[in-house]
């Protein structure tokens, strides 16, 4: 590095111009903060008239049309807005470091939004924002700790994965099924386990493969992981996470295999390959949360779980029915009923 110095201004003796200017700047900033705080009236919702519409803020970690995680929440919220139940404002591609997310949640709360939903595993961010706005209800996805104004909503994907597993058991010719996930988190672990368990009920010798990519957005690596499993003769796949599911779908198209979509209805992405999609119905969950908030009683520290009502195996009409033996379809339907009635308990294996 030659003599070109990055910079070497430095203030001289105490009375240097720069120091005076920088001190003035800091003082100005602090003064502005103090005066504005006093002037601006705290804008909380006028609790007098019970708002018919609940003001809901929705934070999404990805784009609203990603056909999976974020689109599921976005479409559910828009449906509630159309029904006039909520006054929705959302932020997509939100930052995912805890400090920034909790700050964004707090901004919504400060603007009088009664229910702030963080559609990701943002437990810490929700708790840090909730501490500051006891009157605002916060919710985050995926289960975990709850507190007096913090709730979480479950993603019982493993129950529907069990049903998909049954179909997979019928469809697979090689007796090998594949599964992809971003990282080995409990949610994905339980999903893959239930999928294999379901397949075993149809074909006892089914072999289940699993692969962890290491991150949730490297689609190229996810595709290669799926192709690797296809090389180990897997012919029916399931995925857990945005990147993994998008990668899996590209692999299915290339190798003409079958698979199930994750959270969003991904059937249209590969009509000939998608047996169906495990669609996350957030509408019932959001509706429940909105009702609790609307009735003025803040959500008791609740872990919202409406079981199969929030998760549905949406079959892909364009997928050739021939591949799915009728007997297996019937078995899946009956299992679906038995889970709904609670007769059949799908085990949740997280580790």
């Amino acid at each position: 590095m030659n003599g070109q110095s990055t910079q070497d201004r430095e203030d001289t003796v105490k009375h240097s111009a720069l120091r005076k200017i920088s001190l003035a700047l800091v003082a100005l900033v602090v003064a502005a903060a103090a005066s504005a705080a006093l002037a601006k009236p705290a804008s909380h919702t006028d609790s007098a008239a019970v708002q018919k519409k609940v003001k809901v803020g929705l934070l999404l970690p990805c784009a609203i049309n990603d056909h999976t995680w974020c689109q599921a929440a976005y479409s559910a919220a828009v449906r509630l807005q159309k029904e006039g139940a909520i006054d929705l404002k959302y932020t997509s591609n939100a930052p995912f470091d805890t400090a920034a997310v909790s700050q964004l949640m707090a901004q919504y709360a400060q603007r009088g939004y009664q229910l702030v939903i963080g559609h990701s595993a943002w437990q810490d961010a929700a708790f840090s924002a909730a501490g500051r706005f006891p009157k605002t209800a916060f919710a985050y996805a995926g289960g975990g700790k709850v507190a007096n104004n913090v709730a979480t909503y479950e993603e019982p994907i493993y129950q529907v994965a069990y049903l998909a597993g049954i179909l997979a058991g019928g469809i697979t010719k090689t007796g090998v099924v594949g599964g992809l996930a971003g990282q080995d988190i409990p949610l994905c672990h339980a999903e893959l386990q239930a999928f294999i368990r379901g397949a075993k009920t149809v074909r006892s010798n089914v072999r289940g493969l699993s692969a962890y990519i290491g991150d949730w957005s490297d689609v190229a690596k996810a595709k290669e992981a799926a192709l690797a499993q296809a090389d180990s003769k897997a012919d029916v796949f399931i995925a857990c996470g945005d990147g993994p599911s998008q990668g899996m779908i590209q692999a299915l198209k290339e190798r003409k295999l079958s698979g199930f979509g994750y959270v969003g209805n991904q059937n249209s992405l590969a009509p000939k390959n998608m047996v169906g999609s495990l669609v996350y119905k957030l509408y019932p969950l959001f509706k429940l949360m909105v009702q609790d908030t609307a009735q003025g009683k803040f959500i008791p520290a609740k872990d919202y779980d409406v079981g199969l009502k929030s998760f549905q195996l949406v079959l892909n009409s364009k997928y050739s029915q021939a591949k799915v033996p009728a007997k297996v379809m019937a078995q899946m339907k009956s299992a679906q009923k038995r889970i709904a009635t609670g007769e059949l308990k799908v085990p949740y294996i997280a580790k």
Partner: protein
Amino acid sequence: MEGIVKRFGSVVALGGVDFDLRPGEIHGLLGENGAGKTTLMNVLYGLFPADAGTISFDGRPLRLRGPQDAIAAGIGMVHQHYMLVPTLTVAENTVLGERGGALLGRRSLEAVAARLRELGERYGLGVDPFARVWQLSVGEQQRVEILRALYRDARVLVLDEPTALLTPFEAEQLLPKLQTMAAEGASIVFITHHLEEVMAWTNRITVLRHGKHVATVRPQETSTNELARMMVGRDVTLVRLATGTAWQPGSADARREKPVAAPTPVLCAEGLEALGDRGTPALRDVSFLVAAGEIVAIAGVEGNGQSELEEVLLGIRTPDAGRVRLAGGDVTTLDTASRLKRGLGLVPSDRYRRGLIRELSVAHNLVFDRIGEAPFGTRFTLRKRSILARAVELIEQFSIRVSRPEQAAGTLSGGNAQRVVLARLLGRDLRCLIVAQPTRGLDVGAIEFVWEQLDAARNGGVAILLVSTDLDEVMALADRCHVIYEGRLVGEWARGEFDRERIGLAMGGVRADVRETDRPTALAKRDVR
């Protein structure tokens, strides 16, 4: 070239210089360092445009947008610091920058190599076209530059201080080659500040001083005395040995004959071995000692291990073998800071790169090697007042021309900059001072000042190691003198036995016992008093 003007910021390097060159002529361009010789030729070579003036070639005006125009016109230049890419081969360096077909496969390089070999034979400049430049010696690299110019059939060849990096012996072999080229119609510009060479080698001489054209004379019409006066502009006795009125050689010699009372060795090196940056051995079994109140010189052409020696003595480079003792204590493993505390000091050879920090003020440059010590501060504080006070003192004592101590060191002229470095070093309680090329590129007045300071320090009991390529300086100052050649100390002379020729030969690696008759004739003419 008529009325060439070139300014660098506020410094006028060339103030309207006229210069003409006839075919088949060897034209000497003479002047002190900084007189504008190299600048004039860089303008001819298109490295940077002239601010004013015109250049014509074969009668037609020559437009120079960059070196490619000069090369196209047939002008070749051999720079003082060779402009070669070390990792490329000789052939690649030759072809670099040449216009031509995009592809450069193995076949085309073979063709280049063949032509280079042919030129090499014709002018006795043999060098392996496929060797990588960093493997070549300094002399060989110069041959590559000349061959490159010839390869591009240059009709004008500019040589910038060609003998500076060569040993006297190699320099001798260069002249006949230039003469054969001139005989074949090429015209050669020979930039130098050595009077003897220009007298012996050229048909015409142009003298420049401070960017002004002084005169153009033929060697027969003038004498070295007259050239020296034109070069320096005031009546200077021929041999710089006697410059300055402070002390006459006689008196200095008389005082020196008396052996120093008890020559306590201050600095001594034993069997130093060290590798250079390129991994080639730079120091081979170097041993010497310097006593208090003595100046020991190490003469030698640049690139023979001097900078490695400085770094080893200062502790910047760890030797592969051998010991360094300072004031009796073994400092081989000590870091530079502790050596400085024990009274060691270095006046580096490149004052702007290693002697000064241009962005810092003159005041800081005067004390920055003792910044953590009293009175300039403690381990945790800096005392600005005492720094400024000391700076004013030193500015006064070393007569540094500066408007105010806060002025940036980068703005100082060569002489002033060297004064600052000397002030920093000599302003401390020194036991041993290593001085490298102290007067390179200085004007005569500055040289006098430096010599006086060194001499005063020597008389004050400081042990001084003078590393220099300038024979005059060595013979003027040194009590004892070694010569370093390819990392090895060859020969040692006490002041009385100084013999310019034998030292010069030793610098060239020629054993001192060369018989009288072998000495090539040109060298004989040099011995002019």
